[in-house]
């Protein structure tokens, strides 16, 4: 019986075309990811040379003035991109994977996004997660929408009834054939991606694979339930397509709009304004209060004193710069909190909608989501502080360029160790799958 069903499925040219289409879309997506990853690696690899060159030039021009060298030199921090990011580019095309900062105030520099063409960004990436979330369900719907209704419309349903005591079994067997075919395409694509891009076989990759597969199962279960209502083929197709459009367009778009309204981010602009005032005002104010605040923040530098009627000194200059960050710090923290809240709201929405959940889970394990962005931002802050604290005493004590071993000032990188809660990832799928299975099971019992 089963072999007959397999033959019936694979002899249908439309089904094969659909599978090939899906496979091609997947290959295209993997290629997009590979291109993205190559470009990203290229930028990071070049940055090493850029930084060296910039240090060399500035050291040459301002040999005797370490303060001036560090006014210009940008030190880079890399946000390590896992190979898995090729399958889910997420927000990595907007948020740069490498950021260079001088030891002047950070707030002025941290919002610099990478260059991108907004039209491309708005269209979004054609990555593997896109194919999985948007295109796989369509093929599943196309395979399943008429499994029962077609028999009824052809008039063979009664015949089936007579021959088999439980026609539900036959429908399940047909669905199994389709499920195996879609799973096969999915697995083949992942194997190709793994070998082509060289993704390590680790826990994040396993989570990525399983979450995608559960998403596929979810759609099969949804179809199983919808077709069990025994509406006409056209109606089934309409209902499933409406569900697809609602889940993939209406809900995330409306959700995003509500989230933006609920958590408006004004703090970013505020932080920019505050750091600007915080720093520039200090030029026109007495020097000692600035220094007092600076010594409070960093008592270890209180031995580098500044007199009120001193002319310009780097100690005072960098203290002023730091005031910019200090005065913007609360807005800056609030901004990060707002982004976190926006992300949390999206995660919550994901518990109800597997497509959003899949997108978020996969961007999380690939290090391309909002959480990674926020972690990188705080790592950048730490990096900036580390560099400042290293250079401050050298500058303040009037050392020249030779006091620094410039070879140590190489590009550094940050890796985000993602602890993945397996329960949080898989439970939402399992709940929905079991729910849909039970609902359709009730309907299936009534089939005969």
């Amino acid at each position, binding site marked *: 019986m089963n072999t007959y069903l397999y033959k019936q499925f694979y002899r249908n040219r439309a089904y094969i075309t659909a599978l090939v289409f899906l496979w091609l*879309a997947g290959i295209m997506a993997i290629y997009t990811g590979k291109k993205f990853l190559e470009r990203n690696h290229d930028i990071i690899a070049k940055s090493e040379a850029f930084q060296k060159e910039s240090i060399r030039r500035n050291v040459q021009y301002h040999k005797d003035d370490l303060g001036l060298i560090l006014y210009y030199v940008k030190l880079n921090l890399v946000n390590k991109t896992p190979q898995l990011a090729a399958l889910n580019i997420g927000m990595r095309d907007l948020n740069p994977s490498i950021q260079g900062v001088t030891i002047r105030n950070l707030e002025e520099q941290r919002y610099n996004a990478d*260059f991108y*063409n907004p039209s491309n960004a708005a269209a979004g990436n054609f990555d593997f997660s896109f194919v999985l979330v948007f295109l796989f369900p369509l093929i599943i719907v196309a395979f399943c929408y008429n499994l029962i209704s077609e028999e009824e419309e052809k008039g063979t349903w009664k015949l089936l009834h007579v021959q088999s005591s439980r026609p539900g079994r036959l429908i399940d067997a047909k669905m199994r054939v389709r499920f195996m075919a879609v799973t096969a395409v999915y697995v083949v694509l992942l194997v190709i991606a793994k070998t082509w891009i060289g993704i390590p076989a680790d826990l994040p990759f396993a989570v990525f694979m399983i979450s995608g597969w559960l998403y596929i199962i979810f759609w099969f279960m949804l179809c199983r339930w919808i077709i069990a209502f025994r509406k006409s083929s056209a109606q089934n197709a309409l209902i499933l397509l409406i569900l697809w459009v609602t889940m993939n367009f209406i809900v995330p778009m409306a959700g995003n709009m509500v989230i933006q309204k609920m958590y408006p981010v004004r703090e970013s*602009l505020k932080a920019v304004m505050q750091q*600007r005032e915080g720093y520039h005002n200090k030029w026109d104010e007495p020097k000692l209060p600035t220094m007092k605040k600076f010594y409070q923040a960093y008592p270890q530098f209180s031995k580098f004193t500044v007199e009120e*009627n001193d002319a310009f000194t780097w100690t005072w200059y960098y203290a002023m710069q730091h005031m910019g960050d200090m005065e913007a710090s609360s807005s800056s923290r609030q901004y990060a909190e707002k982004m976190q809240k926006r992300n949390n709201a999206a995660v919550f929405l994901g518990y109800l909608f597997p497509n959003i959940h899949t997108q978020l889970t996969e961007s999380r394990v690939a290090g391309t989501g909002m959480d990674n962005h926020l972690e990188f931002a705080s790592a950048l802050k730490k990096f900036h502080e580390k560099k400042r604290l290293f250079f401050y005493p050298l500058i303040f004590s009037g050392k020249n360029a030779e006091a620094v071993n410039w070879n140590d000032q190489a590009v550094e990188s940050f890796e985000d160790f993602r602890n993945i809660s397996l329960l949080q990832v898989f439970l939402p799928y399992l709940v929905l799958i079991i729910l849909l299975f039970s609902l359709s099971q009730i309907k299936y019992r009534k089939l005969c």
Partner: protein
Amino acid sequence: MNRSIVRLIIRKTRHDLLKSRQNRLITVTVLLCCMLSTGLGLMQYRDTASQINGYRKQVREQWEHRPAKHPHRMAHYGYLVFRAAHPLSIFDNGLDDYLGNVIFLEAHKQNTANLSEAGSSGTLVRFGTFSSAFILQCIVPLIIVFLGFGLIAKEREDATLKILNVQGATGRQIIWGKTIGLWQFSLFFLLPVFPAVFFAAVISGAAEWTDIAGRLLVIIPAYMIYYFFISTLTVLVSAFSKSSSSALVSLIGCWLILVVFLPKGIQFAAQNIYPAPSRIAFETNLEQDILKAGDSHNPDDPHFKKLKDSLLQYYHVKKTEELPFNYSGFVMKEGEKISSGIYIRHQNELQEIYNRQQRFSDASALIDPLMAIRNFSMTAAGTDFFSYTRFQRQAEEYRYQMAQELNDLQIEHISNIKPEKGGPPAIVGADSWKKFPDFTYRFTALGLSIREQWLPLAALLFWLAVGILAIEWSGRNLKLI
């Protein structure tokens, strides 16, 4: 052609579509969604606009209330300029989420616009923006397909097509009638949206009502053409399919290709054919070129050494301190001229890459009518990339003027001799800052936008012609049984 028969079929088709309760429900739902997104959009727009206006005022006040200072300090204090979105972004958000709202302007350094909405949102923003334009561009075509897939196929299945023919209707008349009937019904989704958008945009108070009306008057016919093409496609696929169910499957396939697949594929191709440099590469190349041309911060730079020598010779003095004006201000002015020239050249090169990507996307409108309407709608709503580049250019002009005026102040009013310790500081009076005008962003005029990006409009007319020709051709080949 007997017009009365066509008119009869049109009326019959339209009435049949209107009669169904389900169709009326769908129409109302779509309209409600459009109204809802317009309302939410208006709220969002007013919030952002008032926020940006507040910051603009604050920036201006703080600028005017700077104390007496050295002009170069002021040049580094800089200015923040903000981009206000066009009120029609309520209708078509376009690229707004991906464009930065603020640029920090300072001397001898060009910053980019930062802080886009997408930059502070998560992955959810990538699913798109819920705007009337999205509903009208992507969802309504799907509905048209659903309403129209059986228009001819079903009649053939029921053998009523033959009866129509016997009664004197030719294939051509049937197809024209069905298409126009479906198209007229599709206008119920479209036309009621615009009064609401018009009022919302006028209420926002950010643009003249004549400007808004003018833009809407080009947007409406554009969507009408787009729907005409979609209606034609639906009826023709219905006419040439074996059964209504296969017509539906083919039409859903067409929708997927036109709405989901091609737009992404086209952007992907544009990005790969014309790759753009990364920020870090761009900045490094820029720095290198500026150093080659002359670095005003480098004391041994040959260009500035030559300049110094010629000045000393002209004024018959030995040292720059003896010059009758502030020498370092003069150097800075020259440096600004050189560096912004180079910057603009680099910026133009980058811009050219983006322009090529844009032209590729515009040209793709000849393959995908969705690209035509999407790009045209954005252009007309003032939320497209071209309008944004105009903002960037205005900001850069303003920055250059600011830097050079401050350099002039330094040249004229700052002493050439460094102030002694404890002596009077080298500063200019605070009233100088007030004289410098505020930045006002001017929206890009519609005429200019369309003249610069005429391809999407041409593509729409092309699709109109394709629709008409396809109907004419297929009318003669319609199989009745």
